[in-house]
C-alpha cells in the first residue's frame, strides 16, 4: 500500500475452526494482508469464506492457529478497536446513551456527556439518547451500534456485514454516512461484506476471498474519487468496477483449487 509501515500486517494467517480432535475445519488458509493507516479495506466473499473469522482474529477475540498478526505501531489496547457485528447487539436494558457509553465505562475512561452526544450526532441519533433499543428501527439500532464503536475514537474500525439485514434504502444511506464518518474521523476501516456493490462503493481497496478454506484470491484497488457521492451508483466507472469484482468473485467461487497456484 505504501512505503511507510502499515497499521496491521497479516502473514500466513491460518485458522482451524471447531476445536474437536480430528474434526477441525480449515477456516482460513495462509492469509497475508497489509492494512495501511487510513485505509478503507473491504473483505468481499461468499458466506463461509472465513471473513468474519478473520475479523475476529484481528480484533483479538480469537488467536490464529498459525501465522502472525503484527501491529508495527504497537499492539492495540482496549478502545483502539471498534467492532460492529451483523446484528446491532445492543443491551436491551440500557438506553441508547448508556449503550454508547459502555466502551468508555469498560475501558475506565471518563465519559463526558459531550462525547456521547457527539458520537450520537455523528450517526444522526442525537435526539434518541434516552430511547431504548426496542423503540428504534433496525437501521437506527445499527446507527447506535456504530456510535458505540466510534465513541472511544478507535484507530481501527471493524465492521462485520453490519448492513446486511437492512433494506436497500436504509443500507444506501448508512453507506453514505459511513463514508462521511470515515473521512471525518480518519480512522482505518476493515469492512466485511458479501455485496459487490457495497464493497465497490465504500472501499479504497477490496480483498476478494474464496470459500472453504478462506483465502484471499485477489486484491483490487478501487480507482474512484475519494469522495463517494450517491450519484456514483449510476456512474459507468462504478459499474465497471462492480463488474470486475463480480468476475473475481465468480472465479473465487468456481475454482477454489486453481487459486492455489500462485505466481
Amino acid at each position: 500500500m505504501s512505503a511507510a509501515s502499515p497499521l496491521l500486517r497479516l502473514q500466513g494467517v491460518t485458522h482451524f475452526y471447531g476445536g474437536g480432535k480430528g474434526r477441525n475445519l480449515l477456516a482460513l488458509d495462509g492469509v497475508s494482508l497489509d492494512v495501511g493507516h487510513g485505509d478503507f479495506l473491504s473483505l468481499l466473499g461468499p458466506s463461509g469464506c472465513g471473513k468474519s473469522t478473520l475479523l475476529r482474529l484481528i480484533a483479538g477475540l480469537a488467536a490464529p492457529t498459525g501465522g502472525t498478526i503484527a501491529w508495527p505501531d504497537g499492539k492495540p489496547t482496549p478502545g483502539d478497536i471498534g467492532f460492529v457485528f451483523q446484528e446491532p447487539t445492543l443491551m436491551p436494558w440500557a438506553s441508547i446513551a448508556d449503550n454508547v457509553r459502555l466502551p468508555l465505562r469498560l475501558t475506565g475512561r471518563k465519559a463526558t456527556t459531550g462525547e456521547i452526544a457527539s458520537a450520537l450526532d455523528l450517526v444522526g441519533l442525537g435526539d434518541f439518547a434516552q430511547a431504548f433499543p426496542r423503540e428504534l428501527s433496525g437501521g437506527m439500532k445499527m446507527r447506535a451500534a456504530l456510535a458505540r464503536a466510534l465513541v472511544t475514537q478507535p484507530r481501527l474500525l471493524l465492521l462485520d456485514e453490519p448492513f446486511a439485514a437492512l433494506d436497500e434504502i436504509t443500507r444506501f444511506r448508512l453507506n453514505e454516512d459511513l463514508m462521511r464518518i470515515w473521512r471525518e474521523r480518519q480512522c482505518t476501516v476493515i469492512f466485511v461484506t458479501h455485496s459487490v456493490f457495497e464493497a465497490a462503493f465504500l472501499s479504497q481497496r477490496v480483498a476478494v476471498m474464496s470459500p472453504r478454506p478462506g483465502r484471499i484470491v485477489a486484491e483490487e484497488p478501487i480507482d474512484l474519487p475519494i469522495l463517494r457521492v450517491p450519484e456514483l451508483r449510476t456512474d459507468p466507472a462504478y459499474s465497471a468496477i462492480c463488474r470486475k469484482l463480480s468476475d473475481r468473485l465468480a472465479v473465487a467461487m468456481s475454482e477454489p483449487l486453481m487459486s492455489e497456484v500462485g505466481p
Partner: protein
Amino acid sequence: MKALLDRLAPLALGLIGLALWEGLTRLYAVPVYVLPGPLLIAQTLWLDGASLLGSLWITLRITALALLAATLGGVGLAVVMAQSRLIERSLFPYAVIAQVTPVVAIAPLIIIWADNTTLALVICAWIVAFFPIVAATMTGLNAAEKNLRDLFRLYGAGRWQTLRLLRAPAALPYFLTGLRVSGGLSLVGAVVAEFVAGTGGAETGLAFRILESGYRLQIPRLFAALVMLAGAGIAIYMALDLLSRLILRRWHDSALKEPS
C-alpha cells in the same frame, strides 16, 4: 367491550360454581361437618376473621422471611456457580438433592436442630422455595448474547464488570420468573412446615388452625382458613407479577402491553 367480557367471564363462572355448590349442599342437606356451603364459609370468615387474620399474619411472616432467604441464598448460589463450570458441577447436585427431598421428611430433624420454632419453619420453607430462583438465575446469567460477551472482551472488561453490567441485567427477567414461582412455594413451604411442627400456644400459624379445626370438626372454619390461604397465595403472585412488570417495563418483551 371485549376486554370487559374477558374480565367478567371468569368471575361469572366462579359465581355460577358457588351458586351450584350452595344449592346442592342445601338440596341434599349435606351436614356442615362434611361440606359447608359458601354462604356459611363467608359468614365464618366474617365472624372468625379477626382471630384467623392473626394466624395468617404469622404464616405470612414465615413466608416473607423464607422468600427473602430464598432470594438472597438463591441469587448468591447462582452467582457463585456461574463463576466456573467446576464450582457449578460441585455445588449443583446438592441443590438438586435439597430440592427433591420431601420437606415433610426432613422437617422433624430441622425442628430438633433449630433452637427456635420460627427459625425452623423459615428453614423448611426456604428449602422448598429456593430452587426455582437458583435454576432460573443460573440460566439467566448465561443467557447474555454471545456477541455482547465478545464486545465486553474486546474492551477488556473484568469479571466483576461483566457480571454487573452484562450478566446480571441479562439474568433479571429469568430471576423474576423464578421469584414468582418461589413466592408461591414459600407459602406452601411455610404451611407444610407448620403442619409438621404443629406448635400450639400463642404463636400459631394458619396451618395449625386448619389442623385444629379439622380435629374439632369445625369444617366451616377450616374452609375459611383455606380461603384466606388461597387469597394470600394469589396476592403474593400478583404482587410479584406487578413488581416484575414494573422492573422490566421499558425493555423486556414479556412486560409489554399487547397492542389493542
